[in-house]
């Protein structure tokens, strides 16, 4: 955790930046949005960045000479540098590729690197709490190449079993792929330690930071990772954009993933050479408005302060867990209160299916998410098919947590 002093958030002021939070749903209650791990809400400056783009300088990029294209190109290219800086990548745009989401970032590396580098005898080590985006991707690429997949155990309290990791990672490990923060358990994995372990064995490490980057300062160089991915729509940015950080030398050496305009240098009917990173990995007309708006989201989050956001969520989570523990027929998953933990709380109420619970919560204008949260194998190993998940962000309040508790209580009574 960062040692920088963090200011408490002025949540009321922050909420005014998010027009959707003033919205009423259903019978006229004001929306209580606790589904932030799925998608965060979007502040005015980001929404405005999109409109300003389309109203002011919408144009295709890279090769255009005219004013609009020049403005769009500069803004789009600089957005890469901005996001690189946001996660501590000193190489700027040479280490930061825009993808449509975290999932594409994983697929990019799994296809461009994995399909070529993996083979029989090799293995990929993941954790049992991987999101489907990495779990299914590496599983399938391994199947296609004859490599093996291994999963590091998660214990009953949601901690990663690092001893088990040390058993699994060996000289045949080519990639360690881990979440930074579990989107179900709120667990933080010891990324720096895993990076060390991977590198000791000559393996690479890919970190899925979809649940980390939006919520706390992340520095990929301090963590010592090779690849790191995250999504715009979970960090106050727009849909349709994500980022892949990759160490400059690795990205430079990698073959492209998708082919097309913009990623080439010289094309003949017979053969093609590639453009520089990141363009080599961005085939076709890129995510222009999305990339520019994501840079705006990064500015927004840094203006508020990532340390402060982290602290705010920590307080809300502690408070919520305390209140949830009042119910003796409610089970909370993941590390116990008091431990390091992010603003994601998943639970089940005895005798109430998570989807029924979510429907009743919705009645109270409380938006939570029921289901397996794209972690079916984790849910299987916990012996459940679904859980209810509340997840907090910078604009949430204790009053909203109280409303959550009240709604849960209503469901309990209804189903009693």
């Amino acid at each position: 955790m960062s040692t920088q002093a963090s200011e408490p958030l002025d949540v009321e002021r922050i909420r005014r930046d998010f027009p959707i939070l003033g919205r009423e749903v259903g019978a006229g209650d004001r929306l209580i949005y606790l589904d932030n791990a799925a998608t965060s809400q979007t502040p005015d400056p980001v929404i405005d960045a999109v409109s300003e783009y389309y109203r002011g300088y919408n144009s295709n990029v890279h090769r255009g000479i005219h004013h609009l294209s020049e403005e769009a190109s500069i803004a789009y290219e600089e957005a890469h540098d901005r996001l690189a800086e946001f996660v501590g990548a000193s190489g700027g745009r040479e280490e930061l590729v825009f993808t449509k989401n975290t999932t594409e970032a994983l697929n990019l590396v799994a296809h461009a690197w994995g399909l070529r580098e993996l083979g029989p005898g090799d293995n990929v080590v993941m954790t049992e709490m991987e999101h489907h985006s990495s779990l299914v991707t590496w599983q399938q690429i391994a199947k296609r190449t004859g490599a093996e997949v291994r999963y590091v155990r998660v214990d009953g309290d949601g901690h990663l079993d690092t001893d088990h990791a040390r058993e699994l990672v060996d000289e045949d490990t080519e990639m360690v792929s881990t979440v930074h923060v579990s989107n179900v358990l709120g667990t933080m994995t010891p990324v720096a330690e895993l990076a060390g372990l991977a590198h000791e064995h000559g393996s690479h490490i890919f970190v899925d930071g979809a649940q980390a980057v939006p919520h706390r300062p992340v520095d990929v160089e301090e963590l010592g990772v090779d690849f790191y991915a995250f999504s715009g729509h979970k960090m106050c940015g727009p849909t349709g954009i994500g980022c892949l950080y990759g160490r400059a030398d690795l990205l430079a050496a990698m073959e492209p993933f998708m082919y097309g305009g913009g990623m080439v240098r010289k094309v003949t009917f017979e053969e093609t050479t590639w453009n520089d990173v990141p363009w080599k990995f961005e085939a076709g007309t890129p995510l222009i408005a999305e990339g520019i708006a994501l840079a705006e989201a990064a500015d927004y989050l840094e203006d508020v302060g990532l340390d402060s956001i982290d602290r705010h969520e920590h307080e809300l989570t502690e408070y919520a867990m305390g209140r949830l523990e009042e119910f003796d027929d409610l089970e909370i998953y993941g590390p116990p209160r008091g431990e390091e933990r992010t603003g994601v709380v998943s639970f089940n109420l005895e005798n109430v299916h998570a989807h029924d619970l979510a429907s009743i919560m919705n009645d109270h204008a409380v938006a939570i998410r029921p289901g397996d949260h794209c972690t079916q194998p984790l849910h299987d190993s916990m012996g459940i098919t679904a859980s209810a998940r509340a997840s907090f962000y910078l604009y949430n309040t204790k009053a909203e947590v109280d409303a959550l508790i009240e709604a849960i209580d209503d469901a309990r009574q209804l189903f009693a």
Partner: protein
Amino acid sequence: MSAGRDMYRQQILDHYKNPRNYGELDDPTFSHVGENPLCGDEIRVEVKLDEDDETIEYAAFTGDGCAISQASASMLTDELRGLTLKELAALDREDVTDLLGVDVSPMRVKCAVLSEKVAQDGAAIYEGEKEVDVTKTE
């Protein structure tokens, strides 16, 4: 605060907590299973036909899942008794939500209609009109 709690009106909760026709038949004429991936609902419907091989004598179900899917299976199996296979085939989404007596939200309709689709597919398979492995609503 209406739609949601409404969706769980007393009758549904009653059927969920005390499902009718729950269990397996000794001698079903046909039986079929289905899933709704949204909520992980699973339903098996079993049907016993009269000697006319057309009228439903009784129906039963087993399964697991959310209140909406389980309650609607309970109500539907009640309702099926005495219906002909033709009448079963003619049932639609509205018939089920009428049974439930509530407005089911668009996302949850898949839960509500699961048992109906399973019964219909089961009958269609029995009559050789369809080949389905596992019925799915999504």
